[in-house]
């Protein structure tokens, strides 16, 4: 497939892998965190680690949209869906996320009408098709998906669609990175910056990371060669004694971001004073709600919600995994009580969650079995 295969070339990968190895300082161990769950998925899906020397460790970060949704917010969604006449819509990844009262799939089995959509505009279309019902979009994601929610709200306002509202769980990436850097139990050397978030916010918002913490950050694309090249760029910074924000994903990311998208976000959303992140706890100014101008589309104001904070299951160590302190397999319930089919924690749900990615793809990567026998 053109424009895809070029970024998955195994021969180029080998060359890059060798160059990365020559940049490594002998005896030094490098811990590089990929912030974004999409990167985690690519790393496992393509076996990127197999092209890296053993002293480069990729640590998985918090940038998986469903992984950071606390249980109480899942229960709130179910409470909305269980009201008479409501159709709740959400992205597919959300369907299996466990709350205190099961997942959206379980709620559907009990009679709720929760539908999977591919875009918030599809939710709006459902609202148009069912004027007699209330259609609520369960919005999740970082700055990547927030603009599409914002544009949908603008469209709904324009068309005066009154049976549509948004249950907003959008979060922002910078406070999450701050929370990780403030965590005392983690020692990182560098970041692979989130690619699609950066298409919106650009690269400037990360400049404090090299400045204050001395760590390189390279914004990366989502193909396996993108990731290898980003590691190469990071290693080159180390070798040359630099510490900067660099942009590997230049074909999509502009250093200053997307001003139109940022304008729309500023118009439609306002920062919440606090938001609870699964595993990371309450983080100030880390999430979005609808701005007063669009508050009439806010499902949190339209419906009375339980809004109960549900503690994560005791055995679940998603927080430690999200911060990169624990590797997925170091969690006590990994792969036994917590599996993709019966997840306890959110990291085991989405294919971008570190635990699910590791469980589904990763366990044998290290064996590096040679398969050359195949003709």
């Amino acid at each position, binding site marked *: *497939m053109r424009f895809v*295969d070029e970024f*998955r*070339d*195994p*021969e180029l*990968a*080998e060359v890059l892998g060798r160059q990365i190895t020559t940049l490594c300082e002998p005896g030094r161990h490098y811990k590089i965190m990929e912030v974004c769950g*999409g990167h985690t*998925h690519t790393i*496992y*899906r*393509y*076996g*990127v*680690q*197999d*092209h890296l020397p053993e002293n480069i460790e990729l640590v998985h970060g918090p940038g998986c*949209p469903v992984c950071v949704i606390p249980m109480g917010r899942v229960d709130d969604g179910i409470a909305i869906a269980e009201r008479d006449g409501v159709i709740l819509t959400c*992205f*597919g*990844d959300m*369907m*299996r996320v466990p709350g205190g009262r099961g997942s959206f799939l*379980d709620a*559907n*089995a*009990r009679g709720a009408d929760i539908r*999977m959509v*591919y875009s918030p505009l*599809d939710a709006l279309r459902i609202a148009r098709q069912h004027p007699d019902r209330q259609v609520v979009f369960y919005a*999740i*994601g970082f700055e990547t998906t927030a603009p599409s929610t914002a544009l949908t709200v603008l469209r709904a306002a324009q068309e005066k669609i009154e049976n549509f509202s948004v249950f907003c769980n959008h979060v922002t990436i910078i406070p999450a990175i701050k929370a990780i850097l403030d965590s005392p139990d983690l020692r990182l050397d560098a970041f692979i910056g989130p690619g699609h978030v950066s298409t919106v916010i650009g690269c400037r918002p990360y400049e404090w990371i090299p400045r204050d913490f001395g760590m390189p950050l390279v914004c990366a694309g989502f193909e396996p*060669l993108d990731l290898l090249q980003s590691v190469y760029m990071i290693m080159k910074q180390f070798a040359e004694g630099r510490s900067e924000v660099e942009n590997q994903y230049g074909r999509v990311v502009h250093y200053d971001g997307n001003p139109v998208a940022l304008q729309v976000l500023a118009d439609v959303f306002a920062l919440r004073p606090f938001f609870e992140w699964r595993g990371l706890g309450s983080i100030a100014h880390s999430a979005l709600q609808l701005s007063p101008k669009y508050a009439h589309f806010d499902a949190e104001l339209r419906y009375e919600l339980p809004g109960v904070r549900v503690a994560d299951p005791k055995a679940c160590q998603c927080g430690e995994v999200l911060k990169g302190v624990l*590797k997925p*397999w*170091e969690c006590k319930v*990994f*792969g*036994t009580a917590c*599996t*993709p*089919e019966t997840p306890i924690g959110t990291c085991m749900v*989405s*294919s*971008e969650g570190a635990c699910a990615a590791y*469980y*589904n*793809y*990763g*366990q*044998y*990567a*290290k*064996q*590096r*079995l040679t*398969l050359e026998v*195949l*003709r």
Partner: protein
Amino acid sequence: MTRQITEVEVGERIEAMRRRPQRFRDERITMAHGAGGKASRALVEGLVVPLLANPALEQLSDAGLLTVGTSRLALTTDAYVVRPIRFPGGSIGELAVNGTVNDLAVSGARPVALSAALVLEEGLAAGVLEAEITAMAGAARAADVCVITGDTKVVERGKCDSMYVITTGVGVVAAGVELSPHRVRPGDKVLISGTVGDHGVAILLARGDLDIEADVRSDTQPLWGLASALLGSCGAGLHCMRDATRGGVATVLNEIALAAEVGVVLEESRVPVRPEVAGAGEILGIDPLYVANEGKLVAFVAAEQADAALAAMQALPAGCDAAIVGEVREEPRGRVLGRTTFGGHRLIDMLVGDPLPRIC
């Protein structure tokens, strides 16, 4: 302080969990139980099989085998509930014949006769029904079987989605044919009869929810021609066949790896995928290895016979894209390991639920 366990120990613990008999503990049926992955397996192996327990059923093959006098018969049944009922490349009537014929074919049985039960929704247009029965007749002719008995039921509007079709098939297994996961050995080659993912992607696009346009047609077709060619060319060297329907090729390979206690390694770059299907998969975040097929079989063949098997398949239109895609190893026992197109490795597990699209 407890001892830190190692990654290998965690892997072993997961292996033990995977091998444990399946338990069905869900309070209600969710859509995941119908998707052909792990939840379906828990439903069948944890609830249905224990209650109906008998040796033929416990084989969990595509068809049950029984001996009547000196004849060995294969019996299989399947319910077809596809939406929409017509889609590019086929329709529910054609699917209902081919699907059941194929379950017989991959069991090594020549399809002989079918039954068909129709569940019809009040209000269904007569022309639609006639078109589907005509499609069944055409598919039956093409597969050289007859529908010799049937039933019709009508349910109130809204109690079914246009129409459902349930077909049961009987086939005859020739003397000397022994196909079973237990005959799969380390060293065997894994063959796929053609491109993967066509049917599932065609259906997904035909639903029209995605606003993606691509010319992808369902691959629904009878497989007895291919199966019979393989039996003829490999003889006892043909160890096992499966048709890769729900859950796709990945799920079939996992089922065989678990049942045969072997490892399967898959060279992903050799798996034939149409560019349109690969493209739709990229956009939706769906791996074609997990997408349903309705006219593709996976065969495990002794290494010495692999080339003959490949040639036999490629000589037929249904197998023109056939390929050798992997081989059987001793390790990793019970698991499927992929060598990715990028030159790395990954584990290819069973599907968990419906293949859900990723969001960004």
